[in-house]
């Protein structure tokens, strides 16, 4: 198979045989286009998703307000199609396309499959909440699909340029999703905050990238890594650029001390947006860190390991401790996200195959539980009434035992209680850290996880042992949400009982 990156004739006349002409009659032509359909074949999922999103955008214009559920079904179909195409193009080898700015390797395949599956679940939960709140507009679906496209681009980025553009595509879609409910002042406030801080962080990241580009003179990660490996580039200068890049990554993750936007955005944005924002983009943030640090800057590992260690410890400490004081469950989940991000960073800072596999496992598991947790909140919300306080879950067991059981499984997984999968996610990260002889970091992580268990168990206590308000209405749930929630909760349990499959996939993604 011929790739764009492999043979790249310059602006010179080359003798080639065009595919449409008989080969015995070669013609002289200025050649820029290698064997095109085959050369871009591994990028099929992105192309398919982009085409579908544009079609959905146009189709939505002609749909009446009351028929918007067709947009929703089309979006689900687009995601499912992209999922199967990703499976179709996946293979154990590595391919570089588009002059080495795009990479398809087992890691990108697994990250993309995870992203698409989580987004699929998020759309199912969101659909009911949107129609309940009167927010059912086609833009929600197109923006989510564009954000997903941005995440796919990040997962496959192999140059600073494509990575940054993918990140901006994701960020721009999220900025406009947060104030989606235009009548809500908290939503608009959260949107402005997210936009201003996000733009600042993008600027930081871009500044760091420009430093590294200036120092190495290369954009693709292969060349950057090679230039650093030669040791001829000034180390001070590289570390200076690295600091800005780590700040950019930390902001996108929401790691302390760049976490200020997380609680406000989670509280202010509509639940239907938060359940997407809090889940799949965390996997994309992992992909961002992996591509930049592990692919582009492995030569600076000793420097970024220390920076990530500080971020990880601060995130776990602050996230878990402040979450205890929250009475608003969306804010509580926000601080719990910050704590979980600390764990993902711990896995990354191991800077070896084992650590990356553990961090990917953790990101996938976290995204799965977060989308379910916010999904339950979306199910419990009613027109004009959002389930936002922890007290709104009071006596959920009596109102709907099955939903309460699913929420119990999800919360156990977040807390890291066996036999749910959250326990194994934490275990694998700790194992990777301990194998580096970083016992101190592992002890800190366990200590703060135990503190964190308190506030998850408190929600379970409220659900099972408190009496529901007399005035609360019975829980209404559509069959779609019910199926998604059941699949979500049971998969957390099933992956916990049989963690080997997913772990093997994660390890295979990083085995050389």
């Amino acid at each position: 198979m011929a790739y764009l990156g492999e043979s790249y004739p310059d602006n010179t006349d080359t003798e080639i045989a065009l595919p449409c002409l008989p080969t015995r009659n070669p013609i002289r032509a200025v050649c820029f286009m290698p064997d095109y359909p085959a050369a871009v074949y591994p990028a099929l999922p992105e192309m398919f998703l982009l085409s579908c999103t544009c079609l959905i955008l146009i189709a939505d214009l002609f749909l009446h307000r009351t028929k918007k559920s067709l947009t929703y079904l089309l979006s689900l179909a687009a995601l499912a199609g992209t999922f199967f195409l990703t499976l179709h193009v996946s293979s154990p080898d590595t391919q570089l396309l588009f002059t080495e700015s795009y990479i398809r390797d087992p890691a990108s395949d697994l990250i993309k499959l995870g992203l698409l599956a989580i987004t699929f679940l998020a759309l199912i939960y969101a659909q009911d909440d949107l129609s309940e709140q009167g927010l059912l507009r086609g833009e929600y679906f197109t923006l989510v699909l564009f954000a997903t496209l941005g995440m796919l681009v990040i997962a496959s980025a192999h140059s600073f340029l494509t990575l940054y553009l993918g990140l901006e595509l994701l960020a721009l879609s999220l900025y406009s999703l947060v104030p989606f409910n235009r009548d809500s002042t908290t939503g608009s406030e959260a949107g402005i905050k997210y936009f201003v801080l996000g733009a600042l962080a993008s600027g930081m990241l871009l500044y760091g990238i420009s430093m590294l580009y200036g120092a190495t003179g290369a954009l693709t990660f292969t060349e950057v890594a090679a230039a650093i490996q030669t040791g001829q580039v000034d180390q001070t200068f590289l570390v200076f650029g690295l600091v800005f890049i780590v700040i950019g990554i930390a902001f996108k993750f929401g790691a302390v001390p760049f976490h200020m936007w997380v609680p406000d955005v989670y509280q202010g944005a509509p639940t239907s947006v938060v359940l997407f924002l809090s889940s799949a983009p965390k996997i994309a943030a992992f992909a961002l860190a992996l591509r930049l640090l592990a692919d582009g800057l492995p030569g600076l590992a000793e420097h970024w390991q220390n920076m990530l260690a500080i971020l990880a410890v601060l995130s776990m400490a602050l996230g878990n401790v402040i979450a205890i004081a929250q009475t608003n469950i969306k804010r509580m989940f926000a601080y719990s996200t910050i704590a979980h991000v600390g764990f993902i960073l711990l896995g990354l800072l191991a800077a070896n195959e084992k650590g990356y596999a553990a961090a990917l496992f953790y990101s996938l598991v976290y995204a799965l539980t977060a989308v379910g947790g916010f999904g339950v909140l979306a199910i419990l919300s009613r027109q004009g009434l959002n389930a936002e306080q922890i007290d709104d879950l009071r006596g959920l067991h009596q109102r709907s035992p099955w939903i309460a059981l699913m929420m119990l499984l999800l919360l156990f997984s977040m807390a890291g209680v066996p036999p749910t999968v959250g326990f194994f996610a934490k275990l694998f990260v700790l194992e990777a850290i301990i194998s580096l002889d970083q016992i101190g970091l592992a002890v800190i992580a366990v200590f703060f996880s135990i503190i964190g268990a308190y506030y998850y168990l408190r929600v379970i206590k409220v659900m099972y042992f408190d009496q529901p308000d007399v005035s609360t209405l019975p829980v209404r749930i559509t069959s779609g949400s019910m199926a998604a929630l059941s699949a979500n909760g049971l998969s957390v349990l099933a992956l916990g009982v049989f963690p080997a499959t997913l772990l093997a996939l994660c390890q295979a993604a990083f085995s050389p």
Partner: protein
Amino acid sequence: MSFQLLLFYLFAAVLIGAALMVITRRNPVHSALFLVLAFFSCSGLWMLAEAEFLAIALVLVYVGAVMVLFLFVVMMLDINLAELRAGFVRNAPVAVLVALLIGAQLVLILGPERFGLAQFAAPVPKPADYSNTEALGLALFTEHLYAFEIAAVILLVGIIAAISLTLRRRPTTRYQNPGQQVRVQAKDRLRVVKMDAEDVA
């Protein structure tokens, strides 16, 4: 000192001066006009770096389109500047301290001993018939084709985001109905009234 170097320092000084004026002027219209000056000096710098296409694009796009639109918006909106400036004086000491620290760090790291001509040789000037625009076009549509396509998608998302955040149908919203506009007849618009001539004198 060569003429080019003199020009560089001239443009750089004007650029920094104009940028400072942008953030210190009280009148937003003056700020916007100083920003236009900053863009012009920046485009001069790019011209010195032999990036002719970018220099012209900066003037055409930013000065010609973006800044005109910006001035239009500034003049249309009645912004209360006293309110906007309330926090400025209070936060100024911290901001100045942070700016000085970052500035000192930048000078230390990016100084000539690390970024001088010894480390990074000056680029060889291109021949007179070298086309900047052609080189840019070739790079965009071959080497950076993928990035170019993603950038296009980002612009599309920008349009969708702007419309989804601002377009509202209020009962008082006035909008055109093209169907009615096309079907309109002359007699719907103009009524000829017969009347006697007036006696002007």
